[in-house]
Structure formats: structure tokens, C-alpha cells
């Protein structure tokens, strides 16, 4: 009789503890492959088809509240906004006129130089529907998706500068990761000194210039624009302003927090820029000398 367990009164399948371990391991595997390896985008797309109707229904109350607040927006506020927009338009108008003339001139010069013409970038206007609920990241949901031709990786700007980048695309919506999201990176240039660097979101609504030497030529108030080295963002879009520079003798790098130029956390309409013209292919890697030597040695050994 030893080793015989009594017959179970209720059929419960595998032991609860075994089930627990199985499902915990399964969810951990999902977590690792989603966060580190990004294998699960197709799986997520599949499941999101299931969740989509419920999601749409749940977004309706938020839509309703948003529309209602728009509707009841006070007349005064609208008048003020109108005045601001008009004065802004006047200011921009003058610059726009000059821009057209400059573009004309640029085209002439480029043809003179027989340089490749810059391709105009296709862009889509999108509206921000709501902030994604995940409290650990700074993401918002846009009302345009794959059906409007939006693809993952596209740059998003508003009237004042770069806002972020599209990270996930659904059929009718897309997910925009803000620049202030932790570790969201963008290659930039300091306008005054021409210094190139990488700007990271620091997670508290600010951004940070990292990996700049303690004696780098950066001052508070410096404007920071995209450098265009990534092939995603156009060069010269405003990104941030340097808030302060903390140089510490003990640290190799300076700590440089920056304020975002665009209204990164408070806009309603944004512009999704199309993909840039593809950059020339990278030159082939030169094989290091050491490996050549090794190869020769190996060959001579064979002989």
C-alpha cells in the first residue's frame, strides 16, 4: 500500500502548485521575449484583434468626455487661442515667404552642383486620443493606424519640435512613445557648438544628454536639434533646450538635463512624418588585421 495515494474525491486536473509553476514560467518567458527580444509582435497583433472591439467600446466614454469638454470650451478661451494663432501665423508668414525664396535658390544651387534633390517627406496629421494606461511608460495612442499608412519607427512632431516616435501600429490606431519615456533615445546636435550627442528620456518628464565629457562645450540655454544621423528624424528639428549643466570632478561625464521643446506632454494634434529617403549603404567592414593573421596561421598550420 505504500506509495499509493488515496483516490481523489474531486477531479481537479494537475496539482495547483504544478499549475502555478507552469503558468508563472510561461508568463516569465513571455515577458522576457517581449521586453528583451521583441519576438511577440505578431502574437500581440493576433490577440489585439480579439481585444479590439472591447477596447473601442471602452474608449467611447473617454471620447464622449473629450468631445463634451471641447463643446463646452469657453468662448473667451477660444478667442484668446484665435488671437494667438493669428499673431503666430503673421510671424510665420514672413518666414515662410523667405523660405520659399530660399528653397528656390537652394534648388538652383543644387542643380548647379548636380546634387541629389531632397525628397519631400509625406506626412499625416493625427490626433491624440488618450494616454496609454501602462503607468511604467510614457506613451499615447494616436487615431491613425496602418490603414492611414503609418508604420512603426516614424518620427512625430508638433508645431514646436519633435514629440516622439511611433512604436506600435494597429489597424486603426498607433502607439506613440514620447521622447520623455525612459531610455527613449534620439541623436541630436547642439546648435551653438555643433557638438553631436545622444539625448535620452530620463523618466521624470525631462531629457538628458548622456556620454558627453565633463568639459564638453554645452551651456544652459543651448538649443538642441536633431542631427539626422539615425535616418529616421530629419536634421534640424528642434528637440530640447539645455536646462542646466552639472559638472562633477568625480564623474567622467557631465550631467545635462534638458527641457523638451515640443509640448511633449500636453498637445492634441501631431504630425507623423513619413520615412526619409534611404541613406547610402554602410561601407563594408574592414576585416581586422588580427583575424587575417590568425587565418594565415591556421592555413599554414593546415599545410
Amino acid at each position, binding site marked *: 500500500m505504500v506509495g499509493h495515494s488515496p483516490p481523489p474525491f474531486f477531479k*481537479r486536473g494537475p496539482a495547483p502548485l504544478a499549475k502555478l509553476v507552469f503558468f*508563472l514560467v510561461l*508568463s516569465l518567458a513571455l515577458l522576457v521575449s517581449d521586453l528583451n527580444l521583441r519576438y511577440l509582435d505578431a502574437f500581440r497583433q493576433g490577440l489585439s484583434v480579439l481585444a479590439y472591439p472591447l477596447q473601442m*467600446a471602452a474608449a467611447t466614454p473617454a471620447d464622449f468626455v473629450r468631445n463634451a469638454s471641447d463643446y463646452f470650451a469657453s468662448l473667451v478661451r477660444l478667442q484668446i487661442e484665435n488671437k494667438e494663432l493669428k499673431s503666430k501665423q503673421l510671424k510665420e508668414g514672413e518666414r515662410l515667404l523667405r523660405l520659399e525664396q530660399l528653397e528656390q535658390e537652394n534648388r538652383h544651387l543644387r542643380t548647379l552642383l548636380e546634387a541629389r534633390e531632397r525628397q519631400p517627406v509625406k506626412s499625416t496629421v493625427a490626433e491624440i486620443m*488618450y494616454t496609454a494606461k501602462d503607468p511604467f511608460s510614457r506613451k499615447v495612442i494616436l487615431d491613425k493606424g496602418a490603414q492611414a499608412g503609418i508604420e512603426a519607427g516614424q518620427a512625430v512632431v508638433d508645431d514646436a519640435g519633435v514629440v516622439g516616435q511611433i512604436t506600435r501600429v494597429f489597424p486603426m490606431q498607433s502607439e506613440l512613445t514620447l521622447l520623455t519615456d525612459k531610455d527613449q533615445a534620439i541623436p541630436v546636435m547642439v546648435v551653438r557648438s555643433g557638438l553631436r550627442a545622444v539625448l535620452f528620456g530620463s523618466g521624470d518628464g525631462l531629457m538628458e544628454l548622456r556620454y558627453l565629457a565633463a568639459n564638453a562645450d554645452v551651456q544652459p540655454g543651448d538649443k538642441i536639434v536633431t542631427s539626422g544621423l539615425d535616418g529616421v528624424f530629419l536634421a534640424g528639428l528642434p528637440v530640447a533646450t539645455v536646462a542646466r549643466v552639472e559638472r562633477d570632478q568625480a564623474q567622467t561625464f557631465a550631467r545635462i538635463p534638458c527641457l523638451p521643446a515640443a509640448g511633449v506632454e500636453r498637445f492634441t494634434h501631431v504630425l507623423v512624418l513619413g520615412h526619409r529617403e534611404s541613406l547610402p549603404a554602410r561601407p563594408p567592414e574592414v576585416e581586422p588585421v588580427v583575424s587575417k593573421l590568425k587565418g594565415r596561421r591556421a592555413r599554414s598550420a593546415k599545410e
Partner: protein
Amino acid sequence: MQPTNRSRRILLPVKMWFVYTTLFVALFLNYIPTGHLPAVPDFVALVLAFWCVREPLKIGIGAGFVFGLLTDIGVGAALGQHAFAYVLVAYAANELSRRVLWFTPVEQALHVLPLLFLSQVVMVIVRLMAGAEFPGWWMFFGTFVAAVLWIPLHYVLLLPQYQPMERDDNRPI
């Protein structure tokens, strides 16, 4: 047919379609885009814990996993984050069910509070290990709201089981 231990009142057997409907309603409530509003409870965790306490033989870890994945998709979290937490909640609620059912609803809420709190802590740990920012202490307020909601939930979700099959005024229960 399981007696509610406290009142010794015999309830009708639970209908599984009702259990899943309430879970989907909770999922719907979780999907409402409240942004980073503090003190929004995790409805799915709450309803899941409720049914796992009431019906440990009928619902458990598997449902926790599936509804966790659906929550992950809907709120744009890392895939598996809520699944991990809900599997733990379902298991603990199943194991606690024999003890918890002997208490009044208020005392039950006190038992469930640490459970829901644990699920939030697990999610925070998982995401911080993956390198996300700490969202702030406000995200734990929702747990306390959820625990308070347990008391009305206790009556609302059991309502269909209180209804007798045929109405009879002379029936003792």
C-alpha cells in the same frame, strides 16, 4: 451547492457564463483609458480574486493567465506582466478560499487587500527589473479602492445565486 459559511444560507449553484461575463465586464472597465489617473482599481484582479475565493473548484490559474494576457494587450503593458500577477492572485485566492469564506465581507476585504497589493508589487518589480521608470506611489492607491469595492461586490456578484428557482413564500430559505 456550497453554503455561504457565515449565513448558512444555501445558494444556487453558480453559472459559469455569469462568471465569465463579469470577468469580461471587469476587463472592459480596465480598458477605459483613464491615463495615469491615481486610485483606479484593477477590476480584473478584484473580480478574479472574488470568483477564485468563491469557486475554487471551477475557476483558477488558467483563467487568471488568459485574462492577464488580455489586460496586457489592452493597456499596452509588457506581454505577460498582468498574466504573471493574476496567476499569483488566482492561486493565492484558491488556496485562501476555505479560510476567507468564514469571515464577514469586511473581514474578507482585509484578507484580499494584501493579495491585490502583492499583485501590484510583483508588476512593479518585474517592470523595474526590465528598466522602466518607477511611476510613483500613487499606483498603489488603487489597491485600497479595490479592497473597499469588495464589500458591494460581494452582494452584487452573488445576486443571481440568491434567486430561488420558483418563487414560494412558504419556503424557509
